[in-house]
């Protein structure tokens, strides 16, 4: 039951993009086409879940055990950066097909604040390992959902005559605002 609550909360109620403002850069940057949006979401889901597991283990068994949790920020970002590199190398070797699909998005993920954000939130919320994994996967799902809805809207937006000064990023932000308003409708269901 509590896992369902975590999932619904992370996907809809506290959507990381629209409610917590994490991962805005890819949200605006790679949302011109639905296909790229889907690829990015896949890569984020993969890395986010993996990163949360690794950082959770490091926090529990190294940082907390040695009493140096103030090193959290430095450790986490280094771990995530090297993890992304590692994933890239392994994918290239093991699954060239998947690498083709996700490859170009992987380097961008290091500076995606959603990954580090979710890793830190897992620690702050005092989740155990399994809850953390569920939380990370559900957050990534929420990211993907928002990204894909948003990119579908933006594809239509290209065909519409908007005032010159509003073209491009400004209108995208206003659409994102309306989308966030729609997601606010989920407030209070868990």
């Amino acid at each position: 039951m509590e896992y369902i609550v975590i999932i619904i909360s992370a996907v809809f109620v506290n959507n990381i993009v629209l409610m917590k403002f994490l991962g805005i850069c890819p949200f605006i940057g790679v949302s011109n086409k639905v296909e790229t949006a889907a690829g990015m979401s896949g890569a984020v889901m993969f890395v986010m879940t993996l990163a949360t597991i690794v950082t959770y283990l490091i926090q529990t068994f190294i940082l907390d055990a040695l009493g140096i949790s103030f090193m959290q920020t430095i450790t986490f970002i280094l771990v995530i950066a090297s993890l992304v590199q590692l994933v890239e190398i392994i994918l290239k070797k093991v699954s060239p097909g998947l690498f083709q699909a996700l490859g170009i998005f992987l380097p961008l993920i290091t500076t995606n604040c959603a990954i580090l954000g979710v890793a830190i939130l897992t620690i702050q919320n005092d989740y155990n390992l399994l809850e953390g994994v569920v939380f990370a996967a559900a957050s990534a799902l929420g990211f993907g959902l928002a990204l894909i809805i948003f990119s579908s809207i933006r594809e239509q937006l290209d065909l519409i005559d908007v005032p010159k000064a509003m073209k491009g990023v400004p209108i995208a932000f206003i659409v994102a605002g309306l989308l966030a308003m729609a997601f606010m409708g989920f407030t209070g269901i868990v």
Partner: protein
Amino acid sequence: MNQIKNFTKGFVQENPVFVLFLGLCPVLGTTTSAINGLGMGLATTFVLTMSNIVVSLIKNFIPDKVRIPAFIVIIASFVTIVELTMQAFVPTLFDALGLFIPLIVVNCLVLGRSEAFASKNPIWTSLVDGFGMGLGFSLALTMLGGVREILGSGSIFGFKFIHGDGMILFVLAPGAFIVLGYLIMLMQKLKSKSA
């Protein structure tokens, strides 16, 4: 003259938020009031200036292949300094900004300036660049926070000038997107007029 131009380019011409669209997560996430926006902006300015100085100092010793991880470590060290300092001296602001303080590490603006500017320029120019860009970032955050605070709670920097609540929507998540959209629009309008 050149130095002055270098300093002021971040304010309008190359404003990191309104023109370059860098580091948008904290821009949206922390600007529920003008004071929160200003605090976040100044914290980022400190990290940006210090990491620009250090990167510029040691740019000749870092092998090209590992420069990005090296920059990240430098940035993360300064973020930790800011984090601990704010927790000790301004705990209310620290709580309000929350998760976004450690996330300065992954602010693309900071890494972007290290990579694009400080790794190629002497210390003094890098310092000026970092400080100017940081102030431009703070300016944008304070503006956005100010507008949201005026519309959403009818106050500015905590001074209330209407009774009641104002339009709560602007303090909540959708307001952030909408106000930023309109501010960018305004900026593009002004730029197309001046050009």
